Structure formats: C-alpha cells, structure tokens
C-alpha cells in the first residue's frame, strides 16, 4: 500500500545486477525484433498503437486486481468475469439504444459517440453495483467466520475460482456462447503519421488513461479516497478513527469491478463480445500486475502497457501463432530477474 501516496516518485530502481541482466534481455529482444524482415517505421507505429491500446485494457483489469489486493489482501480470481459481464452490459445497452431514432434525430453528428459513452457509463455503474452485490452476498459471509479478509484469504481465493465458473455459466445461459459483434459507430479511421487506424484504438487509450487518472484523483484528493487508503493500510486503525470499514470494503470491491466493466466495453467494438473472453484477460492482467509490481496501482498500468507492447511486437516480428505465450514469458523473465516487478512494494509480512 505504500505505493499509493508517493506514486510516481517512488520508482524502485532495484539492485544494479538486476538491472544489468534485465537490460541485456531487453537489448537482445530489441535486436531480435530489428533483425526481423517486417521491421520498418510503418509497422513499428502500428505495433505501438495496438500494443498501447491492448495494454491499457490489461492495465485496467490489473488495476482492479491490484486495488482489491491492496485493499482486502486477497487476489480476486473472478475479476475476468466482471470484465466479460461488463462487456455484455455495455452491449445490451448498445442494442437497446441502437435502434432509437429519437437519439439520432437529436444528435445526427455525434450519434455513435453519445451511445457509446452511455454504454461505457452503464457498464461502469452496473458492474460497480454487481461487484458490491457479489462481495456482500458471496465473500462477506466467509469473512465473518474466518476473522476478517486478511485471515480468511485462502477461502476467498478458492471462492473466487468458483465464482468465475458460476459467472461464466450464468452468462452462457443468458447470452449463449456465440461471439457477438459490438458495432459502435465511432466514425472513420484516424490518420496518425501516415497510418490509418480504427478510432477505437485511440479511444481505448484515451478512456483507459482517464479512468486511471480519475482513480488516482479519487484516491488522493477526496475524503472517501483517504478512507480507502486508510482501510487498505489497517482495518483496525481505520475502525478507531470512525471509518465504516465493511462499507469501505464493499466500495473498494465495487470500484475495482466497475473499472473492469469499463475495460470490457472498451474492448467490445475492436474485437467481439463472447462469454469466454474473461479468462485469458484475467491471466494476462495478472501477468501485467506482476510485471508492474503486485499491489502497486501505477505499476499495474505500466505493467499493462509493457505486456501489451511486448505481446504485439512479438506477434508481429517473431511469430504470430504464439500470441498468448508472450505475456507469460515476460512474466517469468521478470519474476526471475526482478521478483518484485518494476515498482514492487516489499511484501508485507502477515501475522
């Protein structure tokens, strides 16, 4: 939790040896990519844009995982499912609004944008409420007997696995397993430096970064954020200054799920919305959180970008058929060389 307040100025540089080995790996990797026959400025531009836009999605989910980890001391393994259901919530809203003529008549120019913003907002609010519901109904009873979140950790982790399976199957029942398109009309592709890219890529980066910045502002500048940081550090002391700790735990969980929901709706227009999309995202977000430093919020976003760019660049320049391999390869290399990740917080010893 120490990573929250000093934020960016607390970049942990680490030991010299670690950095030399890690730098060697990075140079080797860059050399490999540069040697590739596909290497040119054009492809580099698209790799960066796609990598950043995919990375911010991993970053957003990792942000939620890290927030729950710092706040409640448990790893939420059902977080990918909140991402998936968030995408479906956005899609449902999109289908509801998509054939409403009055919106089109009211705003003929910005029609697609307005609907999409409403979808994002729907995903944010509904996933927030859904997260609070899940926490209150399924996780809270475990803590009553287990003696608080910190102690009941293992039970909650297993419960997370179970929830993941249940939520996938509930979504399967409601929306069936066919992949669904999310045809948001956001306008023509944008030209950036001679490269035409779907506007959704830019939109993902912009919205994702604003959500992360909003979370930073919320945690550091508002009274509720102060309370959340206090609860994350110590439940007992927070109780003694008059913070309603059970309520704040629900709020932390809700915010983390709401951010995952936004991530799902952001991904929708670029790819497709499908019941099984949560699992692989959870795994990659996990890799991103580990790379950035588990439990560190800015680290989660940086880790997301790193994993996103590494994955995209590798599938462009090395081999596209092993796309899902690279995130975990990066995670293993980082764990071997810098066990605490880029911005790692020293692991708190638990009693």
């Amino acid at each position, binding site marked *: *939790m*120490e990573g*929250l*307040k*000093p934020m960016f100025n607390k970049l942990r540089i680490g030991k010299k040896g670690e950095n030399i080995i890690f730098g060697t790996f990075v140079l080797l990797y860059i050399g490999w990519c540069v040697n590739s026959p596909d290497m040119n400025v054009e492809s580099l531009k698209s790799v960066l844009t796609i990598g950043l836009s995919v990375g911010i999605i991993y970053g957003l989910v990792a942000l939620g995982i890290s927030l729950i980890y710092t706040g409640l001391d448990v790893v939420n393994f059902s977080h990918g499912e909140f991402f998936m259901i968030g995408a479906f919530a956005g899609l449902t809203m999109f289908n509801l609004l998509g054939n409403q003529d009055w919106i089109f008549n009211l705003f003929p120019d910005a029609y697609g944008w307005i609907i999409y913003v409403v979808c994002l907002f729907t995903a944010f609010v509904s996933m927030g409420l859904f997260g609070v519901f899940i926490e209150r109904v399924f996780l809270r009873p475990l803590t009553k007997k287990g*003696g608080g979140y910190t102690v009941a950790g293992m039970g909650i982790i297993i419960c997370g696995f179970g929830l993941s399976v249940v939520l996938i199957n509930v979504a399967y029942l409601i929306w069936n397993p066919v992949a669904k398109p999310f045809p948001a009309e956001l306008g023509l592709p944008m030209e950036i430096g001679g490269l035409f890219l779907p506007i959704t890529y830019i939109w993902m980066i912009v919205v994702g970064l604003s959500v992360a910045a909003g979370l930073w502002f919320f945690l550091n500048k508002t*009274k509720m954020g*102060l*309370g959340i*940081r*206090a609860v994350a*550090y*110590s439940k*007992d*002391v927070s*109780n*003694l*200054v*008059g*913070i*309603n*700790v*059970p309520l704040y735990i629900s709020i932390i969980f809700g915010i983390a799920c709401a951010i995952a929901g936004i991530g799902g709706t952001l991904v929708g227009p670029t790819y497709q919305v499908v019941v099984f999309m949560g699992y692989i995202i959870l795994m990659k977000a996990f890799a991103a959180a580990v790379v950035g430093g588990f439990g560190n919020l800015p680290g989660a976003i940086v880790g997301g970008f790193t994993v996103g760019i590494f994955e995209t660049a590798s599938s462009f320049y090395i081999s596209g058929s092993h796309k899902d391999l690279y995130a975990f390869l990066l995670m293993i290399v980082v764990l071997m060389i810098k066990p605490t990740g880029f911005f790692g917080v020293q692991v708190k010893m638990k009693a």
Partner: protein
Amino acid sequence: MLKIDQLISGYGSVQILNGANMKVEKQSIVALLGGNGTGKSTILRAASGLIRSWKGTIEFDGEQIQNLPAHEIVGRGLVQVTQGKDVFPAMSVTENLKLGGFILKSKQQLSDNLEKVYNYFPRLNERKDQLAATLSGGELQMLCIGRGLMSNPKMIMLDEPSAALAPQIVLDIFKNINRIRQDGLTVLVVEQNVRMALLLADYGYVIKDGVINVEGDSKKLMYDESVKESYLGGTKANV
C-alpha cells in the same frame, strides 16, 4: 462517563476478561494498571468495539454500547488511541490528523480541530508536511493522541502512551494529557509505568488475570503493597 460491568471477553475461544468492573468519572484521569497479558488492552478493545463482548455491559454516557460497530462508538465520542504508534506511515502528518476527524461533517470544524491539536503539540505543526514514517517515537505518540482528539471526543482511552519513550518525552506527553483533561475530556490511561501513571491519574485500577484486583485513589495506590504484588505475580518477593 464509562461504566464497565462484569465484562467477559477474549480472542477467538480464549477468554481473557473474567468479569471486570470499572467506572470512569467525568473529567477525571483514570489509570488501568497491570502486567503483561492481564487483559488491559482487551478491556479497551472491547470498549471501542474492536472485539465482541461475550457477557456483561459497557455503558458510555448513559447508553449501552457493547457490541456496537466500532465506527459508531467513535461517533458517540469514545475514542481509543492504539498501542504501538499505529499511524499511516505513507501519509503526511496533516493527512493522518484529517483521518482522525473522518466523522466530522464540516470543513470548518476540521480546521478548527487541526488548529487545536497543533496547539497541544507544536512539534506536529513543524512537521505537518512530512510523511508519518519519518517521525520519531515521541512525535508518533503525539500524532496518535492528536488523531484521537480530532473527532471531538468526550473521552479518550490511551493504550500505553509511555511505551518505549525517553522519560523526558513521557513527561511532556503526560503534561499534555493533563491539559486535555483540563479542557473537559475524560481520560483512561492503560499503563505499565505504574509510578508515572499514578502521578498523573486521580483514580487507579489494577487488573490481574482478567479481573480488577485492587482499586483506589491514586495517592493511596502508590504506596499499596498489593499493587506491587499484582505486578510480581501474586506472591511477595523476598528480595
């Protein structure tokens, strides 16, 4: 102000308090003394709602407060200052104090109370933008007490304010506790430092094995043989 009647409580299945009785009068300083593991802190934790009371009643300001959620007890004006200088190390001194006033509704009141705490402890004012992790032991203790005062409490309970501090600083802190009492608050001090605590307090309780063993006026307790006995384990030491 605070009345504890036949309180039974503990951690998990381990019973620590076996029917403790206590009474704290308004605007007084009461010392709760006892050796390690006798249940001093447990009484405080039960009173501030951190652990459940199994049996017995805790009455504060004429109302029963046992087993209320901890934040509601703070709202009623009973605040515990924890042992071991439990501050939020990654936050600045001002932020720590603002957290103490978390239940206050108006910003005006918050800044008034901040002013008041800086008045009690000028050292905190000098250090107000530093991270709490960089403070010394005495300053941390001041910060803890200051944080307790931020929410306009009627009574504060201090858990070992003198632990691991130099005598000069202990004296300074105890002077401030006396000032706090003169400003109208009730104080309950849990202490291991018997002599200092009894010098400060009006009335004293000595707890042993989860029940109150000896009680009385602090001037009287100071020379009471049974106080020594409770500390040395029940039998008279032949030294």
